[in-house]
Each structure stands twice: as structure tokens, then as C-alpha cells.
């Protein structure tokens, strides 16, 4: 048992996740939406690690590594989509992306 209570850690993870969610819903700039996605994935990984530390098992950290690889793949594809979208429409506003015709 670490000296930090698991509850406070989970509260921090929840606050970070909600901040990322608010960022996704409030911002229209696609780059900020991608950043908020990163924040949310990071908060989810933090919750895994806290749970792993609570039971002193390494499974939480292993899951964090998986979350890390998923985030890396997600951000590479997301940024490629973002480049494509920006070249196509010359704007950063995600509301402009309401048609899928190339």
C-alpha cells in the first residue's frame, strides 16, 4: 500500500479526464481536439496505474504501456487526417468537416 490514498489519485485522473472531455466539446480547432484526446487517454492510463499501485501488481503498468501504444497510433493517424483536412479546406474548424466527399 502506497502512502497516497488511491481515492485521491482516482479523483485526479477523473478531473483530468473531464478536462479533456470539456476540451473536445468546447474547442472547434482540430489540433486542440487531438490534444484533448491525448489528455483523456493519459488520464485513463493514470487510473490504470493507480489501480495497479493500489494492489501492488504490475498489471496496471502493463496496461499503461498498451494505452501508450494506442495513443501513439491514434495521434499519428489523427495528425495525418488533420493534414489532409487542412490541405483540402484550408481551415482548422472541425465544423467544416461535415461532408465526406473528397
Amino acid at each position, binding site marked *: 500500500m502506497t502512502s497516497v490514498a488511491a481515492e485521491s489519485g482516482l479523483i485526479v485522473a477523473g478531473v483530468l479526464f473531464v478536462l479533456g472531455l470539456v476540451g473536445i466539446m*468546447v474547442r472547434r480547432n482540430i489540433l486542440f481536439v487531438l490534444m484533448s484526446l491525448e489528455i483523456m487517454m493519459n488520464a485513463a492510463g493514470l487510473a490504470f496505474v493507480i489501480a495497479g*499501485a493500489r494492489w501492488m501488481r504490475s498489471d496496471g503498468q502493463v496496461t499503461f504501456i498498451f494505452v501508450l501504444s494506442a495513443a501513439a497510433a491514434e495521434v499519428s493517424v489523427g495528425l*495525418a487526417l488533420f*493534414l489532409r483536412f487542412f490541405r483540402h479546406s484550408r481551415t482548422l474548424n472541425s465544423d467544416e468537416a461535415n461532408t465526406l466527399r473528397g
Partner: protein
Amino acid sequence: MNLLFYMASAVAVVSTLMVITRTHAVHALLYLVVSFLAIAVIFFILGGPFIAALEVIIYAGAIMVLFVFVVMMLDFGRPQPKRNRWMILRVWTGPSFLALILFVEFAFVISGRARPLPTNPIPPKEVGVSLFGPYLLGVELAAMLLLTGIVGALHLALRKRQPAHRFFDKGGPK
């Protein structure tokens, strides 16, 4: 130990709040790096030195560099009135102040004055044994996911090739 944890958490929350309220992408990226560093400190306090290093190297290093590359590749069509506009004092004082807090915590822990760190940190060896033991299938799936990410990003970001002559232009799908 608790105090260090709460300070790092406060830094993480404040810098994340700044990320989602900035107007300029580069300023937000600065705060995002600080947020990831703060979360790395939290990981270290919780007893995961290995993933704290991974957080710094991969999140704050690689993924943020990817974002910065994309911001550099695009010019956002904004005229730059002054050459040194990004050097304005108040742009970097906020992130540096937050990073300074983290650095003080780091120095405090390194100096050995903190009470025994995480009572029993999970060593990297245990993580590795678990990763390549019961979770081997997950590792292979992650490898396939990363390969798919590479191929997908390459395919999406390639510009359409200009034909050398209109004779070679077969008129692909418009």
C-alpha cells in the same frame, strides 16, 4: 510524500486547464508538455519508475514532437507582424513556473531528504516479465496496431502524385 503527490496533481490540473483555454497552438503544446511531466512525477510517486520514464520519453518527447512538427509544417495563414513575437515574456513564464515546481520536487526527491519513496516500487523487471509473459498476445496486437498506424498515416498524408505528362494521367477516381 503526500505533499509531493498533491503538488504534482495540482500542477497537472492547472496546466491541463491552460491547455484547453489557449488560443495559440504552440502555447497549448508548452502547457501540455508540462502536464505530461507532472503526470510522470505522479507515476514515480505511485511506484512506477519505468512508466514514469516512458511517459517522459514517449508522451512528452515523441508525441509532442509530432504535434510540433505538424504545427511547423502548416502555416496557419496568419501574418506574423513581429519577428520575436513568440518570445514575449508572459508566454513562457507560466510553463516555466510550473516546470520549476516539478524540478524542485525532483531535486527534493533526488537529495534523499524525502522519506522512503514509494514504499515498494514495482521494478521494471517485474513489468517486463509480466509484459512478455501473460500479456504476450497484447504485445503482438500492439505491434500490429502500430504497423497499421504507420501504413495509415503514410497513406493519408501522401500528396497526390503529379503525373509527368498528361499522357500518363489515367484519370483515377476523382
